[in-house]
């Protein structure tokens, strides 16, 4: 049985069809990559899975439970968490408490003390411990991304969605974040990485889903995807592909 089973999900915004019958399966302990150009509907898919919007039609099962119309907080308790592509820290809380509040209300309900303990560990892992007592306002963009990651990991969930968690990172920082993600994955957490740039994902993902225009264009192992003509076409443009 899949851990997550999204079938035929449709989501419209007025006249715009952001998701047009998307189906995605994620297995336990898998590391899945979702790629696609701007406006493909990747973030919308995460939002629908997380319960920010309910889909217009379609069904979503998580761990054998129907979550299609479940409020967001209950999905977290079942074991799903996510990061935001555009960081959304709680600006009135210090970095440590930003992570702690996520730990407190995550898959398990923890006390303030326990949650702060976990938060310290995780900040250590994503190398943000030295900023623990600052307010998010004074963090750089990459630090804010790490905070997003720390918050999602602190929730102790089975499945984590990372919405362009590595965007804007380069060199050592990128390698660092990727190694954290791989380690988390090795510990048994299922991860779905959304990326804009294929390169990042191809080395570590076990399965890749390609989205274009609100639809799933292709799905398969990285090697299959990189040789798929349709993917090349959508990424590099029609003219290139036809040559």
């Amino acid at each position: 049985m899949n851990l997550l089973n999204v079938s035929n999900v449709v989501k419209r915004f007025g006249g715009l069809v952001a998701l047009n019958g998307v189906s995605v399966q994620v297995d336990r302990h898998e590391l899945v990559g979702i790629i696609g150009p701007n406006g493909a509907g990747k973030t919308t898919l995460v939002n629908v899975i997380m319960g920010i919007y309910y889909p217009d039609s379609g069904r979503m099962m998580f761990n054998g439970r129907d979550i299609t119309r479940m409020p967001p907080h209950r999905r977290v308790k079942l074991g799903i968490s996510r990061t935001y592509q555009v960081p959304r820290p709680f600006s009135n809380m210090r970095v440590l408490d930003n992570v702690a509040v996520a730990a407190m209300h995550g898959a398990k309900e923890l006390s303030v003390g326990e949650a702060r303990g976990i938060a310290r560990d995780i900040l250590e892992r994503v190398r943000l411990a030295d900023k623990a007592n600052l307010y998010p306002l004074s963090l750089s963009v990459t630090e804010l991304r790490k905070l997003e990651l720390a918050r999602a990991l602190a929730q102790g969930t089975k499945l984590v969605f990372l919405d362009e968690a590595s965007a804007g990172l380069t060199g050592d920082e990128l390698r660092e974040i990727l190694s954290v993600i791989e380690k988390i994955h090795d510990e048994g957490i299922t991860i779905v990485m959304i990326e804009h740039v294929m390169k990042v994902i191809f080395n570590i993902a076990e399965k890749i889903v390609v989205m274009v225009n609100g639809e799933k264009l292709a799905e398969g192992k990285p090697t299959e995807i990189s040789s798929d003509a349709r993917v090349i076409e959508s990424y590099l443009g029609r003219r290139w592909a036809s040559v």
Partner: protein
Amino acid sequence: MKIMAVFLLQHLGPLLIWGLVTSSVYLLMATGLTLIFGTLRLVNFAHGDLIVLSAFITFLLTTNMNLNPFIALIPAMFVVMTVGVAIYRFGFKPIYGISKVSEILMTIGISYIIENAMAYYFLPVYRTSVEIPSPVGGGGVVLPGNVLMTYDMLETIVVSWVLMIILYYWLYRTGQGIAIRALSQNPVGASISGVDVGRLSYVIFLVGSALAAVAGALYGILYTFWPYNGIILTLMAFSVMILGGVGSIPGTMIASLVMGYAVNFASYYLGGCWGEAISFIILALVLLVRPSGIFRGG
């Protein structure tokens, strides 16, 4: 059967007419509010106070200078529009878009200032409708079923609905109106496509306040008022606005009819204070059934 007929003639007739009159006043009160909220995303809690202010100025000019209320309405309108624009310029503009919390607190503070300033200047006493003379010299017609419709009631209905037609024309046929509608649908897009949002904001507050001024004069001619009337008028306008759907003129028209009749029937059959309660109940029900929920849109 006979009792039914007597009931119909004696009670239902006047209620139907008064419902229409009340609706017409609500319509004027709510369109100003819905215009501002629909475009600038600001609820002017002092809107009701502007209406009362207009009633008081009209009252002052008719009693002290013997002006016809319709002539007195012109300076009243001028003052109310000035106050309306001042509310925007000095109250909202410095904090606009920074924090909703500040905006909400500001608007209640402004309402409080205007209310108490009026209580100080005009004294906290009730002014009955007879204190503003009829602009058309009184009189009226007796409708079939022995229902009296005074000319003042008639002129309220006519002025209100004619103004709506003009407003509709302005919003849907003129360049400025179309810009305002663009603003209400997509503020960012409108400003990108060259709409001068800053200037338009003033226009919107001017028009909204002008509508409040007209509503105020008509209200003063028909009803008793005092400086602390603003709250209940604002509340009625809220209910109509929410029921009709924010920013929608046709919706506001229908909602004002519903509210006008609901209030008249409730206060007639349940007692005076229930008119206010019913408008609250309608507001609460609409918000409960169709709230602008946080997880929808936006």
